[in-house]
Each structure stands twice: as C-alpha cells, then as structure tokens.
C-alpha cells in the first residue's frame, strides 16, 4: 500500500507541476508533504509561484488565479487516475478570457478519456461542446429546454 501511495504521489506531483505550467503559461508549482514524512498520515500542501513573480502564500493570489490553481489540482488528479464522468458547475466563473482559453484547451485533452458535463455562461466554452443544451425557467414555474443561438449567447 505504501509503495502504491508513493507512486501515486510522485505521479500526482509531476502532473500538477506540468498542468500548472500549461494553465498559467509559465511559473511553477508543487505538492509538498507536510507533517510527518509518513505518507499514510502526512498532509498535502499546494505551493504556487506565478510567472515572473516570487513564491507567495496562496491567499495573496487573485480570485481567478486561485480558481485556476484549484483547477490545476483537479486536472492533475484526472491525469493520474481519470474518472469516467466529471460534472463541472460554473468552475470557470472567476477566469478572464485568456485563462479560460487555456483552461478549455486542457479540458479538451482530458475529454479524450473523461466525459465532461459543464455548466457555463461562457461563449467560448459553448463553442467547444459536442452537445449543447439551453435551459429556461418557464412562465409556469417549471424548467424547460430552449434552442440556443450562439451569436446571441453571452
């Protein structure tokens, strides 16, 4: 068990370092074991250094930078051990257009192994979906499907 945990940690750490660089276009990040050196009880800390900047506490990162760092951790988990289905509810909300584009590019790569159902308001996200559904709250108080015109959306 301990060997398997060590392999997983090595793989997760390498994936996180790589995904972070892809999503931020640079910089560096790491997953660091805390507390005891015993993997069965150690904690996992996230360190992030943005491109061109010094290492700082995560709390100092902006809202969008924190969201993207969390997404990098999630993507690293999916790279280490993919799940069949992943449902994402507006996780791109805090990202600006440039960060959202890098996020979607990486998501498309992961989508070869995982089915993603994504709730979004973003036009560039809608454009990359194979299936796109629009909802509305009907006047009668019930949800209903509506057809979507992409030029109007967003």
């Amino acid at each position, binding site marked *: 068990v301990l060997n398997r945990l060590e392999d997983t940690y090595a*793989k997760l750490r390498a994936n996180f370092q790589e995904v972070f660089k892809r999503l931020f276009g640079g910089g560096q990040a790491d997953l660091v074991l805390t507390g005891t050196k015993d993997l069965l009880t150690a904690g996992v800390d996230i360190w992030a250094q943005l491109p061109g900047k010094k290492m700082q506490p995560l709390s100092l990162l902006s809202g969008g930078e924190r969201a993207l760092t969390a997404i990098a*951790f999630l993507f690293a988990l999916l790279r280490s051990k993919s799940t069949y289905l992943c449902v994402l509810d507006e996780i791109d909300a805090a990202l600006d257009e440039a960060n959202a584009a890098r996020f979607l590019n990486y998501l498309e790569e992961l989508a070869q192994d995982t*089915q993603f159902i994504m709730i979004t308001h973003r036009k560039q996200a809608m454009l990359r*979906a194979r299936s796109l559904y629009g*909802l509305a*709250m009907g006047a009668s108080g*019930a949800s209903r*499907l509506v057809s979507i015109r992409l030029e109007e959306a967003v």
Partner: protein
Amino acid sequence: MYLERLTIQGFKSFAERLELVFEPGISAIVGPNGSGKSNIVDAIRWALGEQSLHALRGERLEDIIFSGSDHRRAHGLAEVTLTFANADGGLPVPYSEVVITRRAYRSGSSEFLLNGVPCRLRDIQELFWDTGLGREGYSFIGQGRVEEVLNLKPEERRVFLEQAA
C-alpha cells in the same frame, strides 16, 4: 463507459419531463439564473445514490420534489433515470447498457431500479464504487466550490491522493 441519457421528471424544478442526450467528450448546459442548470447536477448525484439532502441544497425530502408554482400543482413523485453506455465494461455488470432509476414519493417512500429490476439503494451505490463517481471522489465540482480544495487542511487534501491511488 459514459452517460448517454438523462431523464428527469418531478425532481426540483422539472415539472415537465426533461430528456438530455449526451455523447463522450464535452457537453455544455447554459441558461439564465434559476433556470435549473445546477438542479440537473443535483439530479445526477441523487440518482447515483447521494443521501445527503444538504449536498443537494435541500433541507427536507420534499425539497427535491416539484413543489408547485402559481400555475402548476405540486408533484407527488420525483424520478430521475440515468442511462449509461457500458460497452467497455466500466460498470461491473454484463449489460452493454445500464439504466438506473431513482424515485422518491412525497409520502416518503423510495424506489430504485437497475435495468428495470427493483433493487436497493446500496446496489446502485456499490455499482459505481470503482468508477470515481462515488461520494468522496473528484467527479462533481459544485457551483462556487472550485476554490475549496485550496482551503482544506493538508490532511483533508491527502484524501484525494488516496483516491487517485
């Protein structure tokens, strides 16, 4: 293994039957505030066996059954059906298509079906244990919750490491 079809009726805001067909890859759901997008996420989790009403943003069982509006009467039954394509055997049953149905009646009773055959909640939960779609996994990221992983204690974050093993 992927989710092919989602059918919802009577669950939360879905007074009318809603059917969505999905393919592998990326699917997107869009719409204004309150249109039911997050309710769809709740429906999928519930049908997979989620038992915590709090995780579904509710307080009582009746919160997940259509409660009525100015123009519609309340429903007595909430039903969600998930149809999975299983050609790769990702689900440990010998069917190329796996259909899960969960029902909840306002009276408090529940029904669970696996390919049309009544089963227990536990049977559905166990079916998905190795797929990463269970309760502890990283398969569902709720609205406004993507940053949560940064705020966990290091020991809590370690749980993800164990799941990825």
